[in-house]
C-alpha cells in the first residue's frame, strides 16, 4: 500500500493505492494552515487505513512556498564576502514595471543589519585571493547569535567554483552553536550569479526551521500510528527524496504539488506508449502547462517566486520542472475594459463566492457561467450533485456582457469562451513554440476541473491531434502523481568551457563524472544503489549569454561525441531561434540527473461490465458555439470501452465534465482514460 499526500493552499488531498486489492481510495479535507499535520492525519484517518500495512508515503506540500509568500519564516542572518552584503537589496537593479516611476523592487528577506561581511575572497578561477580570518568569522557569528537569529545563510563570492571558504564558515558556526540552522549557498547550487545564489540560500535558511519541525512532526505522527515504511518528500524536479534531504534543503520542495501532476501524466503516457506530452492543468483560477519530451520533464533552474509582468520576483536556482501558469481558469471573471474590449481573468471568483450560477453570492460573469449558458456544463448540477447550478443566475451575470455589446446572451457567453480558449492556447504556445517544440508533435494531457473543457478547443487551435483525459479524478491527480514518482536528484554546475579547445574534452568528462559521483553518493546515502544517470549541458555560441539545454550521451566523451553534441546544439538552437552561427560553442552549465526507480505503480484496467451506450446516454442538450445545436450527453461511468463516440458530445462524471467537438471523436480506453482525436 502506498499513500500520496498533497497539502495545497485550501485542501489537503490523500490518495491511497493498495497493490494487493487494486483499490484506489482518495479523500479531500480542508488544509489546517497553523499545523498542517492536523489536516493530513484527519484525511488519512477518514480512509480507515491500517498504516502498519503501508510501505510508502510520498508527501508534497505548499507549506514551504507559502511560508515565503506570506513571509512567515525565521529570523535569519546572512554572511557574505566583504563588499557584497547589499547584493540582496541591489538585486539586478532592473525596473520590470518600466513606466512606473514609483516602482518598488521586491523586499529582501534579510534586513541590512543582519547582513554581515567577512574579508575572505576567492578568485574567479577558484584560487584564494584573501584567506579566511577565523577570528573575524567568529565575531560575525557571535553578533548574529546575539541578535537571536535561528538560521544563518552563507553566500560567498565565487563559491560556485570553490566552496572551501563556505565550508570553513560552516565548521566555525557549528563550533560556536551546533543548534543554529546553517545553509551554504554552494550546497544548494553550484551555479554562478551571486544575487540569484545568495537569494536561494537565504530563502532556504528562511524556511528551514519551520519545514524541519513540520517534517519531524508528521513523521512522528505516522510512526505513532504504526507506520513502518519509508517516507519521501516530493521535490520540484518531479522526483522525491528522503525526509532528511528535504529538511536540509526545503527550498527543493517549493513546487512539489503541481509537479506531481506532470509525473502522473508521464506515468499514464508510459502505459499508453506516449512519450511526448504537453500537460494542461486547468484549475479554478489558473491554468498550468508543462512539456514532457521523451518521457522526461523539462527541468530548469530559471525559477522565480512571485514573478509577473511587473515584478521580477525572487530567483530560486534549484532544479524545477518548467511550468507556465496564467490567470485563466474555470472561475476566471469576464470583464470589459475601458476601451470596450472583453477580457477574461486574471481575477477569478475562486471557490468563494464562486461562479454566479453556484448561488453563493457571486455576481460577476465567469467562464463557468458561460459554459452553462452555452450548454457545455450541466445547467442543474455539477460534481455528481455536490454543486447545485442555477442557470438563471448565470444568465443574469452574463447578461451584463450581452447588454453592453447589445448581442444575444449566448453570443456573449461564446465570446467569453473564445477569449479564455485563446488565453489557454497561448500558455501552450509559450511552453512549446517558444521553447522550440512544435505542439503538433505532442499529445495533450488535460486534467484539473477545467482542463478537459479547454482541451478540445486548444487542440484545434494548435492542431494537436490527440487529447488524453486521465481516468484519475480531476481533483486529486497531483496527489496520485506522487504515487508514481521515483527518487531523483538533479545537480547543476557552472563551468564555462569552449568545446573546441584542446584540453576541453578532459574537463568535460571530469565535470560530468564529478557531478555523477556526487549524485550517486547522495542517492547512496539515502539507501539507493541502482541508479539511472541522465546528462544535459546548457550550451551557447561563444559570446552569447543565454543557453539552450542539450541532452548529452552517457559514457566517455571523445571527439566523435563532441561532434554529435555540436550537431544537437545547432539543431536545437535553430529550432528555437530560427538560425545557427558559425561561432565556437561553449558549455556553461553541466547538469546531471540521478534517478532511483521505486516499485512501479501498476495501472489497473477498469470493469467492463454494465457498460452500454444506451445506458450511458443521458439526453440531448441545447448548445451554442456560434450556432445553435443539440449535443448528446453521456455518463462516463456507463460508457462502453473502446466505443467510438462521434462528436459533438458531452461526457459527464462525478468529478468533471469533458466535451468532444464537432469533427472530433472520443473513446474510453480499458483503463478509463478518455481519448479524443481528430
Amino acid at each position, binding site marked *: 500500500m502506498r499513500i500520496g499526500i498533497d497539502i495545497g493552499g485550501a485542501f489537503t488531498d490523500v490518495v491511497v493505492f493498495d497493490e494487493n486489492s487494486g483499490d484506489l481510495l482518495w479523500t479531500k479535507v480542508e488544509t489546517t494552515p497553523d499545523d498542517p499535520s492536523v489536516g493530513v492525519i484527519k484525511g488519512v484517518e477518514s480512509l480507515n487505513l491500517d498504516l502498519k500495512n503501508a510501505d510508502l508515503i510520498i508527501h508534497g506540500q505548499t507549506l514551504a512556498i507559502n511560508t515565503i509568500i506570506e513571509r512567515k519564516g525565521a529570523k535569519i542572518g546572512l554572511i557574505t564576502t*566583504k*563588499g*557584497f552584503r*547589499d*547584493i540582496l*537589496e*541591489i*538585486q*539586478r*537593479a*532592473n*525596473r*520590470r514595471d*518600466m*513606466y*512606473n*516611476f*514609483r516602482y*518598488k*523592487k521586491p523586499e529582501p528577506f534579510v*534586513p*541590512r*543589519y543582519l547582513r554581515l561581511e567577512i574579508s575572505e575572497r576567492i*578568485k*574567479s578561477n577558484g584560487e584564494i*585571493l584573501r584567506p579566511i580570518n577565523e577570528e573575524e568569522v567568529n565575531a560575525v557569528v557571535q553578533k548574529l547569535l546575539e*541578535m537571536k537569529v535561528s538560521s544563518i545563510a552563507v553566500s560567498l*563570492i*565565487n563559491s560556485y567554483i570553490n566552496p572551501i571558504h563556505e565550508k570553513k564558515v560552516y565548521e566555525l558556526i557549528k563550533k560556536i552553536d551546533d543548534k543554529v540552522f546553517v545553509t551554504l549557498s554552494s550546497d544548494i547550487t553550484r551555479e*554562478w*550569479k*551571486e*544575487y540569484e545564489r545568495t537569494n536561494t540560500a537565504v530563502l532556504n535558511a528562511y524556511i528551514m526551521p519551520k519545514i524541519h519541525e513540520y517534517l519531524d512532526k508528521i513523521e512522528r505522527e505516522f510512526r505513532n500510528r504504526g507506520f513502518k515504511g519509508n517516507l519521501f518528500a516530493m521535490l520540484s524536479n518531479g522526483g522525491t527524496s528522503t525526509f532528511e534531504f528535504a529538511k536540509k534543503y526545503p527550498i527543493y520542495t517549493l513546487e512539489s504539488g503541481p509537479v506531481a501532476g506532470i509525473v502522473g501524466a508521464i506515468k499514464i503516457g508510459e502505459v499508453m506508449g506516449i512519450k511526448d506530452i504537453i500537460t494542461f492543468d486547468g484549475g479554478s483560477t489558473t491554468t498550468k502547462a508543462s512539456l514532457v519530451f521523451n518521457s522526461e520533464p523539462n527541468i530548469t533552474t530559471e525559477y522565480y517566486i512571485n514573478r509577473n509582468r511587473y515584478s521580477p520576483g525572487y530567483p530560486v536556482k534549484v532544479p524545477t520542472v518548467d511550468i507556465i501558469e496564467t490567470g485563466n481558469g474555470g472561475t476566471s471573471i469576464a470583464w470589459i475594459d*475601458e*476601451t*470596450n*474590449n*472583453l477580457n477574461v481573468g486574471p481575477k477569478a471568483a475562486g471557490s468563494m463566492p464562486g461562479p454566479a450560477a453556484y448561488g453563493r453570492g457571486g455576481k460577476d460573469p465567469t467562464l463557468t457561467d458561460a459554459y452553462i449558458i452555452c450548454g457545455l456544463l450541466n445547467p442543474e448540477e455539477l460534481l455528481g450533485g455536490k454543486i447545485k447550478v442555477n442557470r438563471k443566475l448565470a444568465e443574469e451575470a452574463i447578461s451584463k456582457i450581452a447588454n453592453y*455589446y447589445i448581442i444575444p446572451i449566448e453570443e456573449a457567453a461564446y*465570446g467569453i469562451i*473564445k*477569449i479564455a480558449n*485563446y488565453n489557454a492556447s*497561448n500558455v501552450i*504556445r509559450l511552453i512549446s*513554440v*517558444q521553447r522550440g517544440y512544435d505542439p503538433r508533435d505532442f499529445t495533450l494531457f488535460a486534467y484539473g476541473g477545467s482542463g478537459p473543457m479547454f482541451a478540445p478547443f486548444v487542440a484545434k487551435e494548435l492542431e494537436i491531434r490527440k487529447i488524453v483525459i486521465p481516468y484519475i479524478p480531476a481533483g486529486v491527480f497531483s496527489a496520485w502523481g506522487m504515487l508514481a514518482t521515483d527518487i531523483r536528484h538533479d545537480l547543476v554546475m557552472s563551468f*564555462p568551457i569552449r568545446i573546441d579547445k584542446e584540453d576541453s574534452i578532459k574537463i568535460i568528462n571530469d565535470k560530468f563524472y564529478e557531478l555523477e559521483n556526487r549524485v550517486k553518493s547522495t542517492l547512496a546515502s539515502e539507501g539507493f544503489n541502482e541508479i539511472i544517470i541522465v546528462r544535459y549541458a546548457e550550451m551557447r*555560441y561563444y*559570446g*552569447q*549569454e*543565454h543557453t539552450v539545454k542539450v541532452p548529452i550521451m552517457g559514457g566517455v566523451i571523445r571527439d566523435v561525441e563532441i561532434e554529435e553534441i555540436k550537431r544537437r546544439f545547432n539543431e536545437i*538552437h535553430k529550432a*528555437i*531561434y*530560427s*538560425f545557427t*552561427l558559425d*561561432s565556437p560553442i561553449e558549455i556553461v552549465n553541466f547538469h546531471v540527473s540521478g534517478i532511483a526507480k521505486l516499485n512501479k505503480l501498476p495501472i489497473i484496467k477498469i470493469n467492463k461490465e454494465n457498460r452500454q451506450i444506451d445506458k450511458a446516454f443521458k439526453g440531448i442538450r441545447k448548445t451554442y458555439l456560434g450556432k445553435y445545436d443539440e449535443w448528446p450527453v453521456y455518463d462516463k461511468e456507463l460508457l462502453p470501452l473502446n466505443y467510438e463516440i462521434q462528436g459533438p458530445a458531452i461526457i459527464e462524471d462525478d468529478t468533471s465534465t469533458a466535451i468532444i467537438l464537432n469533427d472530433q471523436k472520443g473513446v474510453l480506453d480499458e483503463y478509463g482514460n478518455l481519448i479524443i482525436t481528430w
Partner: protein
Amino acid sequence: MVDIFTLEIIKNGLIAASEEMFYAFQRTAKSPVIYEVLDYAVGITDYKGRGLVAQSPGVPGFSGVLDFTIREVLNKWKNELNPGDIIATNIPYSGGTHLNDVALVMPVFYKDELLGFIVNKGHWSEIGGMHFGSWTSDANEIFQEGLQLPSIKIYIEDRPNRDVIDIIKANSRLPEATLGDMEAQIGSMKVAKKRIDELVRKYGIEAIKEAMEKLIEDGEKLSKLRLKELPKGTFEAEDYIDDDGINDNPIYVRVKVTITDNEFIVDFTGSSNQVNGSINSPLPATVSAVREIYMAVTDPHALPNAGYFKPLKIIAPEGSIFNPKKPAATSTYWESMSYATDLVWKALAPRVPEKLSAGHFLSILATIIGGIDDRTGEPFAIVEPQPGGWGASYNSDGESALVASGDGETYIASAEVYENRMPILVDRIELNTEDGVGHGKYRGGFGIIKDYIILCKEAYFTVSIGRYKYTPWGVNGGMNGPPNYCVVYKKGEKPRIIRKAAALKLEYGDKISLHSAGGGGWGNPAERDLNLILNDIINGYISIDTAEKVYKLDKNLLKDIYKKL
C-alpha cells in the same frame, strides 16, 4: 467583417508576435548591452508605416524611435520594397538616437500586398568611430562616431547583400559580436514574421488590418480617458546640464507642459542650442523621452502604441539641443535625452504625486572598459549603465539601486560572470551610504558604489557622468541628492575624480570606483517619523551624526534603538 471577440484575439496575437521577437533577440544576442541591458526595442507597424500597432521596448527610452525609423525607410524606398528585403538604418536626426543603435526593418507581404513592417532596433557594441565602443564623450561631429547606414538594404529578396555586410564587418572593432547580434536581430524578426503569417493564414488579411486599426483606436481612446484624470493647466520647469563634455559651461534647458482635455503639449522652446559635444538629443530620442514620462503620468500599464501617443504634441525647435541638425555629434545623446524626461517630471511631480517621485540620479554613468584579455588574447568589452538612487515620494522613501528612467528591464551584470569573462576584479558593489541621499520627511533611495580593479596589462576606460554639478532635485522642502562621480586610482598617482573620460588608459591593478547618486527627498526632514530614523540608524543607512544634524534627533532616544533589535 470579423466579430469583436475574434478581433481581440488577433490583436493579442500581434502583441504576442512582438513579444516573441523581443524574447528571441534577448536570448540569442552576443553583446551584454542587448542581453543584459536590453538596449533595444522591437515592434510591428501597419502598412502605411503610420504608427506602431505593437511594440516591446526593453528600455522605456526606446518607446518613440521605431515609428521615425519606418517613416525614414518609406521615404527612401517608397514602392521599391519586396518580400525578403531587410533594411538597416541608424541616422540619428531622422530616425534614431546614435549610430550604435541600428534599426533593421522587414516589410511583411501577403502575396503581393504589403501588410506592415517588422522592426528591431538594437545597440550594436561596435560600429567604428574614433574610440573603442563607438560612442564617446569627446566627439564633436557625427563622422567621428562610426559608420552611417542611411536605410541600406542588407538583404535583398532573402539574399544577404554581401558587399554591405563586408563594409559593416570591416568597420567594426568587434566584428564577431556585431555580426552575431545582427544575425540574432534578423532571426528574431523571422520569429515574428512566422507568427504574423500564421495569423494571416487563419483569419485573412482584412481581419489583420482591421485588428491593427483597432489597436490604434483603442490606444487613443484609453489615452484620452487617462488625460482627463490629470490636472489641467500649464506647468514649467528648468534645469542645467553639467556640460557638453568639450568645455565646462553649464547648459540651460527648460520645458513648458500644457495639459488640456485632449492634448498634452510639451514645449522645449528656450532650451539651449545644439552643442559642440556629443550630448545632443536627436528629435526621435527627445520624443521617446517624453513618451516615457507620458506613460508614467497617464498609465504605466497601457500599451505604448501610435494611438496612445496621439494626444501628445512635442515642440523642440530645430537646431536646439533637443533637435540637433547634421553634423551634430549625438553619441552620448542620453545625457540630454534624460533631461527631456526629467524636466516634464520635475514640472509635474508636485501635481501628480501618486505617479511621480522626486528627482533621481538621472545620469546612467555609462561606462566602457575594454582591452585585450591576457588570459585568452581576445578582446573584451564591458559596456554598461549603472544603477542609482530614485527620489522619495509623498508617502514613502525612494528606492535604492535602480536603473535610470531611460532604462527598464535592464539588468546589472553579475560580478561572478564578469570576473569569469573579463580580466577584472569586482571589489565591491554596495549601497552608497558614503555620499548619502536627499533627506526629507521621506528620503531618497541610495545609489551604489562599484569598484573595478583591472587585471590585464592595458585597458581603456570611457565614461560619461552627468548630475555632478546639478544634483537630483527634492520636492516640497526635501533636500537634493548628492552628485554622481567616479574616482580613478592609478598606480603612482593621486586618486582623481572624473566625470567624463574618453579611452583613458589603465594598467594592471588600477581601480575605478563608480559612485552613483542617491535620490532627492520629499518634504521637510524635521517631519520625518522617529521610527524611520531609528530604522535607518540600525541598518546603517544613515549615521547618528546625520540623524542629529539633519533630522534633529534627540540623543536620549538613541537607547531605544537597541531595544528594537
